[in-house]
């Protein structure tokens, strides 16, 4: 009996595995499944889990990648509203939103085929939107005038409208500009302009530097002169104070101006004989007049 029970259990397990293989399929978190019956899509499964199906031959299950697909369109030339040649490429994040519509639209739900189709739509939408905007809407130092986000939104809306009109079962999750550029020949012209700008800037820097240096020097000269003039004024004031003090003493000398005059002359005389002086006396000068009385007189011999 025990041996029979084991046999039964093994048989049931094997039967269950067989039934699961035939009648159950699994959908993962990232997938969406399309169930076809005799080749015609009859339902799709978008949430993960295990699901019942009829055996192969009656129903087939196709699993599609439901995740966001990233792709970048061609970096090609378009024209802005003001006639500028502009190279632009955008990136797109898209995903399958309606597997039943997507599956028959592109051969067995081929993502690559869907991207080829989407790329054409994106290129057309990009050209249409770029053609409506001047170059200043793409690059502008004034944030108010820059229409970058609006342009991206316009392209995205146009692409979304087109895939909806085609009933592609696709939803555009996001779209953004990946590169902006200019045709090769235009880059050469831009370099010529940039070179001229740099030369102008170099000249301006030199002139500004020299001008500022001259201003600093002139200012230094002026301030230095002002400083010395102020000091000179202060010096004169100080000397004036000395003169005032001296003037206060003058009444002393007014007691006898003759004595004062004599003392000052005496002082001047002494000062004048202090250095590098040659003094020539004759016999009448005091005290050499004394010599007249002591030296022998030749005429008297």
């Amino acid at each position, binding site marked *: 009996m025990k041996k029979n029970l084991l046999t039964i259990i093994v048989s049931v397990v094997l039967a269950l595995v067989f039934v699961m293989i035939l009648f159950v399929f699994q959908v993962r978190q*990232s997938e969406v499944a399309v169930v076809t019956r005799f080749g015609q899509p009859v339902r799709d499964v978008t949430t993960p889990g295990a699901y019942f199906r009829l055996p192969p031959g009656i129903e087939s299950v196709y699993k599609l990648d439901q995740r966001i697909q990233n792709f970048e369109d061609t970096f090609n030339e378009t024209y802005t509203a003001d006639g500028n040649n502009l190279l632009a490429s955008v990136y797109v994040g898209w995903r399958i939103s309606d597997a039943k519509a997507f599956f028959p639209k592109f051969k067995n739900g081929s993502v690559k085929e869907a991207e080829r189709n989407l790329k054409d739509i994106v290129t057309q939408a990009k050209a249409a939107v770029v053609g409506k905007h001047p170059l200043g809407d793409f690059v502008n130092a004034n*944030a108010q005038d820059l229409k970058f986000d609006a342009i991206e939104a316009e392209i995205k809306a146009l692409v979304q409208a087109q895939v909806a009109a085609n009933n592609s079962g696709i939803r555009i999750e996001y779209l*953004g500009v990946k590169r902006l550029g200019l045709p090769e020949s235009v880059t050469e012209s831009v370099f010529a302009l940039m070179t001229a700008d740099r030369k102008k800037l170099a000249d301006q820097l030199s002139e500004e530097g020299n001008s500022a*240096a001259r201003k600093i020097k002139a200012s230094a000269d002026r301030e230095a002169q002002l400083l010395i003039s102020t000091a000179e004024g202060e010096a004169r004031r100080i000397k004036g104070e000395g003169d005032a003090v*001296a003037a206060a003493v003058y009444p*002393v000398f007014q007691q006898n101006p003759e004595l004062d005059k004599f003392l000052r002359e005496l002082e001047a005389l002494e000062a004048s004989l202090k250095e590098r002086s040659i003094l020539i006396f004759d016999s009448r000068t005091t005290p050499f007049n004394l010599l007249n009385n002591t030296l022998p007189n030749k005429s008297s011999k």
Partner: protein
Amino acid sequence: MSNEPKTPPPGQPIDPGAQALADALHSSFGIVKFVMAVLFVVFLFSGFFTVGPREKAIKLRFGKPVGEGDKVLLGSGAHWAWPYPIDEVIKIPITEVQEVRSRSHWFMQTAVQEAAGEVPPTGPSLNPALDGYALTADRNIIHAKASVRYRIEDPVRCVFDFSSGADQAYGLTGISNAVLNALDNALVYAAARARLDDVLREKTAFQDAVQRRVVQLVLEQKLGITVEQCLVETRNPRQLDMAFKNVTDAGQRARAALTEASSYQNKKMNEAEGEAAARVNAAQAERSDMVAKIEGDAAIFKKVLPYYLADPQLFVQQELNKVLGRAIAGVDYKMYLPTTPDGKPMELRLNLNREPMKIGGAKPAN
């Protein structure tokens, strides 16, 4: 119902051939049972798996991730899951911090050249198929490359919402591509709003602008990551290296002129301050001398006045003699002219140069 060979009832003769067959079948069934038991054990233990140090694992049960938030990620170590088709284990090479690098706006440069810091030779223009660049707000051209370091915040979103390419493989390629696209967009956007000189001079501000845009796109597109750091490197087109160098040189010359002027200013002001202080000090000294002298003179005047008034003639003679005495003693060269025999003073004729000869100076050459 049993597959085991039947044993004959007791009393019946046993066919040796049948007995041998029964023994052989019995042994075979034993082997089959053993193999089944081993397979069952292997089946049970096949649920064990290990996660390496630089990877994480996500367990799917009937296709749905087990756990929520961070708990969905299984760290390094041993884990167990039901065998397929109940559970399925996905291993992802997630490091603590992920990084993407953008070179879409940089000129063509091989990895070797980049590592060596070499800049390839240039032509007169940029080929859009080879050389990347960005347009600035003043319609100039600039090269920029950037990297973003980010952390996975929502692993389920990152792994199960962004395709990693063909064969529906799981990984982080999809989210990396999405972040890279956001970074490229941020470079275009930030350059389109900034002037060339702002991009080159205010590098930090430009880098911040790029990072802000990346963060904005990460939130808008719900990428499930957190941006840790964004680094941006910019440079002028190689074709304009000389023109930019000239500007740099001009700037340096301007700075040198300013430095020289500043030095001149300092020197001039220091000299002026010294001169001013000297003049004020001299005036103060002169004032002090003058006041002291006049006061001294007054004191002397008061002292000698009585003597003068008593006998002016005598006073004058005495004072004069005292001064002459001191003066004559100090004079270097004295000449006395005696009286001539006729009683007149001797005549002395002097031939004076414009510059009187220094007493005791160099003698004129013969």
